[in-house]
Each structure stands twice: as C-alpha cells, then as structure tokens.
C-alpha cells in the first residue's frame, strides 16, 4: 500500500503543470549558475596568475631596495574552485593584501569595489538558487499536500478504506520528496558534468568530497522546507491559508532572521569602526616616525667624532645601527598594530559568532554558513588568509630591513640592483576537509533537527487531522 501511495504521489506531481514549470526553471537556473560560476572562476584564475606575474615583474623592476620597501609586496589569494557553486564572500571581499613596512595588511580590490553594481544583486550561484528559488519550490510542492486533498475530497475517499493514517502521510512525504528531487537531479548531474569537462577546473579528491557534502546540505535544506510545508498543510483547513502561512515563514527564515541577527549582534556587542582602528594605527605610526627621526639625529650627533676619526668603521657602525633601529621601529609598529588588531579581531569574532549563532535559527543561515565553510569561500577562510598575511608581514619586514641597511653605499649613495631570490614567500596551510566538516557539524545538526521537528509535527498533526 505504501508503494501505491508513493507511486500515486509521484505520478500526481509529475503530471502537474507545477512540475514542468519547476523542472524547466531548475534546469535553466542551475545550468546558468554553474556556467556563471565556471566563467567567473576561469576569469579570476587568469586574473590571479596575471596578478602574481605582474607583482613579481613590478618588484623586480624596482631600482633598489628602498623603492621596493616603498611599494611592498602584494599577496594574492587564489580563487577557490568550489566558488563555482558557492561563491560566498569571494566577490564582496578583495583577494589582494599589500604588505609593506608601515601599513597593516588588509584585503583590497574586491569585485564589488571595482564595480559596485555587482553588489546590488549579489552572485547568482547554486547556493543562492537553492536558498531562494528551490526552497520556494519545496513550499510549492507541499503547501496543499494534505489540505489540498481535503479540499478535493480525496482524503476522505482514501481514508474510507483500510488505510492507516501514518502510512498515508509517510507515502505522501516520500513520494512528494522524490517528486521534488527529480527536477533537481538532472540539472545537478549536468552541472557536475560541466565541472568535469571544463579544462581549467580540476577537482581533487577532497574537492569532490566537499562538493558532495555541499549537495547533501542543499538536500537537507530543501527537506526542511518540504517537511515544514507538510506540517503547515496538516495544520490548516484551506490551501490558501497554508500557502500564506508558509510564505510568511519563508520570508522570516530567509530574509528577516539573518539580517536581524546581524543587526542585533551589532547592538549587543558593538565594535569600533575600521576607520577608528586605522586612525589609531596611523597616530602610532606618526609617533614612531617622529621618534625615529629624532633617534637618527641623536645617534649621528653622538657618533659624529667617530666619523671623522675612522669613516669606514663609522660606516659599518651606522649600517648596523640603521638595520637594528629600523627593525626596532618596525617591530614597534607591528607590535602595536597587532595588539590593536588582536583586540579588534577578538571583538569582531565575538560579534560575528553571536550573529552567526543567532541567525542559525534560520535554515537559510545554516545553509549559507555551512556551504561556505565547505566551499572555503566563507568569512573564516578570508580571516585565515588575512591572518597568514599578517603573520608574514614581520618576516617580510625583517628581510627588507636587512636588505635596506646592507645596500646603502655611503660614499656614492648608489644602491645595488635588487634580487628577490632569498625573499621569504607567503604560505598558507590549507584547511583540510576534516576540519571544515567539524565546523559544519552545527549546521548539519540544525538542519536535521529542523527536519525531524517539522516532520514529527506533520505526522502527529495528520494523525489527528480533521478530514471532513
């Protein structure tokens, strides 16, 4: 009997106009999103390679280490291959962090800053389509699952037979879910094929694992709305009421809660603005610059007699002083900046975590954060990248300071041509799948808990549903 109910439910759904509409729209949107993702990724990868080459060429073309110290080095974050399906904040945040002696590294040159019109609509990635469009389809498939049958009189007719109610709701749920997945699976498989055959995209074993987990999260997210639809349908006596209630809940879940959570977290745990932080850093920098000017003069005053006695020894002594003093000053800047930054980051993280945890009442937030973590395109990945650049900065500073001191020719003032062979390179340890998985456990758990709550709600409600 369960098989008959499932079969009927699938047949009833796939012969309906809403199925054809859903299938067509899903196919168009999913393929379009993956095509856009692939095109963007290829462009970003090209841009990244070009940026690396340009940066190297730019550095090598500097006449001396002084000018190199002036321009610094640009560390560029490579685009993530899974950004093709979950763009995350890849376009909102820049992927280039300039590193030089004085300024604290920060991410610049985002796609949105170069062309703000992109920020108006956001990316059309697969996650967006699942979060907004497909969740609405899940509602469209379920809002009248129970109440619609009541209105048609088929529920009475079915239950006038030896049909247990629990089996009927189970059959409807399974059949309905299969019907919802059918229009999704074909375009999703086609998307995977596109990812496989596109030449610039190479997915490793771990990437496939991540991709499957992202897809699993998509299905869980849709299941939340599917079971919610069943629940509301089993709690209402008119399909129009059911649809309105579901639409209201959808707006609250998808639109309101994530935004309200961020605003509320900002009120509960306020943090200073970026401008305040920059002003603090700049003030200290000015103080250090004045201090260092005075330090140089004092040193020269103190050692003037040595210069007349033995200019060569003085030159060596001055070189040593310069190197040490420069290092001392930049260390002071770094220490101060990192102290300010540490405090700021700590407070920002606390605010961020509060906002994320509060917004997780919404399945849309759980999906957003979970899938971004798995795709390595989330806030945390950019924070990790920036932290690695900030950790690299003192290493680079030490290197450039030593080069600066060594390369000064006190007689001619000339400086030798630069060589970057021994320049320390920026490295970042990739986040392994196991670590990402651990971080997404709360999101998976929340989605599963919501599915269970709504399905049990639908099940119990249907057992007591007034079929008249």
């Amino acid at each position: 009997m369960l098989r008959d109910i499932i079969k009927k439910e699938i047949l009833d759904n796939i012969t309906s106009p809403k199925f054809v509409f859903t299938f067509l729209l899903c196919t168009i949107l999913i393929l379009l999103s993956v095509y856009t993702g692939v095109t963007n990724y290829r462009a970003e990868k090209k841009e990244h390679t070009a940026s690396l080459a340009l940066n190297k060429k730019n550095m090598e073309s500097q006449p001396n280490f002084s000018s190199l110290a002036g321009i610094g080095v640009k560390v560029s974050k490579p685009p993530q291959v899974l950004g093709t399906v979950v763009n995350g904040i890849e376009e909102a945040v820049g992927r280039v962090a300039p590193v030089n002696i004085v300024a604290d590294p920060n991410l610049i040159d985002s796609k949105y800053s170069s062309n703000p019109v992109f920020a108006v609509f956001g990316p059309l990635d697969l996650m967006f389509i699942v979060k907004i469009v497909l969740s609405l389809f899940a509602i469209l498939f379920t809002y009248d699952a129970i109440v619609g049958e009541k209105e048609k009189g088929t529920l009475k007719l079915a239950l006038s037979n030896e049909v247990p109610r629990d089996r009927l709701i189970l059959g409807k749920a399974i059949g309905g879910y299969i019907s919802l997945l059918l229009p999704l699976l074909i375009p999703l498989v086609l998307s995977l094929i596109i990812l496989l055959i596109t030449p610039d995209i190479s997915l490793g074993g771990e990437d496939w694992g991540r991709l499957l987990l992202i897809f699993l999260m998509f299905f869980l997210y849709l299941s939340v709305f599917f079971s919610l639809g069943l629940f509301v349908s089993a709690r209402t006596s008119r399909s129009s009421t059911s649809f309105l209630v579901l639409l209201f809940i959808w707006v609250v879940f998808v639109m309101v809660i994530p935004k309200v959570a961020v605003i509320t977290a900002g009120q509960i745990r306020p943090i200073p603005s970026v401008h305040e932080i920059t002003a603090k850093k700049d003030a200290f920098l000015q103080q250090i610059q004045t201090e260092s000017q005075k330090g140089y003069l004092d040193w020269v005053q103190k050692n003037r007699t040595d210069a007349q006695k033995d200019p060569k020894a003085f030159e060596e002594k001055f070189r040593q002083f310069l190197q040490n003093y420069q290092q001392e000053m930049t260390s002071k800047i770094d220490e101060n900046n990192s102290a300010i930054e540490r405090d700021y980051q700590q407070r920002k993280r606390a605010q961020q975590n509060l906002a994320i945890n509060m917004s997780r009442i919404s399945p849309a937030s759980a999906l957003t954060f979970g899938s971004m973590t798995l795709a390595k395109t989330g806030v945390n990945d950019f924070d990790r990248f920036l932290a690695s650049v900030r950790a690299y900065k003192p290493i680079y500073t030490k290197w450039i300071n030593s080069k600066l001191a060594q390369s000064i020719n006190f007689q001619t003032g000339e400086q030798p041509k630069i060589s970057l062979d021994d320049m320390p390179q920026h490295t970042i340890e990739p986040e392994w799948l196991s670590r990402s998985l651990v971080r997404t456990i709360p999101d998976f758990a929340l989605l599963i808990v919501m599915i269970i709550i709504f399905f049990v709600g639908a099940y119990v409600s249907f057992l007591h549903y007034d079929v008249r």
Partner: protein
Amino acid sequence: MLEAINLTKRYEDGELALDGLTFKVEPGEIFCMFGANGAGKTTAINLFLNFIPATSGTALIEGIDVAKDPLKAKRHVSFVSENVMLYGNFTAVQNLDYFSRLAGKRTLKKKDYAEVLDRVGLQKEAFDRRVKNFSKGMRQKLGIAIALVKDAPNVLLDEPTSGLDPQSGREFLEILVQMRDKGKSVFMSTHDIFRAKLIADRIGFMRRGRLVMMKTAMELAHEDLTDLYIQYMEEQPAQPSAALSA
C-alpha cells in the same frame, strides 16, 4: 449490515450534531435519510467512517465497532461522497486504479476498470481523459465506480445525486438497486425525495441531530413524500419515540 446505537456527537463548541441516533440497515436494504442542512446526516456518515469520534453510542459495520477497530470496519464499507473532485491530473482509469489498490483490489486489469466505468455510464472516450476536464456528473459516476470496485457489503452515500442530470440520476438509481439485489446494505443521505421514493426500502427524517421519523416503503406507498418532507422539516418539538413506533 450497518447499525447505529444511540449515536451522539457533541462538538467542542457545545453544538449537539447527533443526539441518540439509532437505526439499522439490513443486508439487501436501501435506507434513505432526509434532513435539512446541518440536521446530522453527514455527521452520521463521518462517525461510521471514524473521521470523527462519537461522544457516546456505537457505530457498527458488519458488527464491528468502528471506534474500536476502524481499519477492520472500513474493509466492509464503500463510500461515495458529494462532489468529490478526485485527482485532476489522473485519468478516470488511473483514479480508479489508485483507489481500488487502497481498497485492497490489486489484481484488477484495465478491462475490469473499463467494465465498471461502462457500468456507471461513463462514455468510453472519457476513460483515458484527465479528470480535471470532467463535469460534475462524470466525476460523480467515477466516484460510484470507485465504490463499485471495492465491492464492500455496505455502502455509505453522502448526497450522491446532487448535480446529476436526469439521465445520470436514473442510471445511478439502477446501480443502487443492483447493489441492493446483491445483498448490500445501502445508507444514503439525500435531499432528493423523488429519486429516493423510487428505490428506498426505508426512509428516515432527521432534525437537529435526532431521527424524528422512520417509515418503510410500504407505509409510504399511499403518502405524499413531499408533504411528509415539509411536515417533518418544519420546526416542531421532536417526538422520535412516537414517530418511530408508527
């Protein structure tokens, strides 16, 4: 056999929908129940199908207490409701197939369905047409076909003739008579006094949840059913015991 023993239903809001309803429909008998809207006819059917629980009293189908073993009781009853829409995207055969499977008839073939649909008077070209394009009368015929396929010994019909044209109405009555001749107990709630008079073995009148009059076909033979209908539908103190003893 269908039997109601002192069946009472009071809703949560205090409304008394059924008040000590007692009747029996024997095998091979058609029992037609009249009453104004809200008199309690449909409530009685809902209690027999266990769609709502009774406040007190018992509904028995083939001697099985519906409240105690609803699934077993439903095995022995077919149901035809008023204005059933059915699955609009399915054809008549697909609808019939689904409901017959729910009724436990899994071995029926397409020709069996065609035979039943033919019997209820549905045109052949409509068998494989989507039900959403059916008229009310055609849907009603399909509803009757669903009940016929189940072939249960008891049949509950909730205003089945509403919306049927004269031809369809006549065909429908023929089917009910065939059912009776096969020994089925038929309980029909209706407003259609003219058709009911043609086939009913017994007639009951309900008002405000109470059975206020019950007469056999023989007793009705020399009475004007329209006058009786008007008389019993009018507001008057209910005297069920006197009427029932008549």
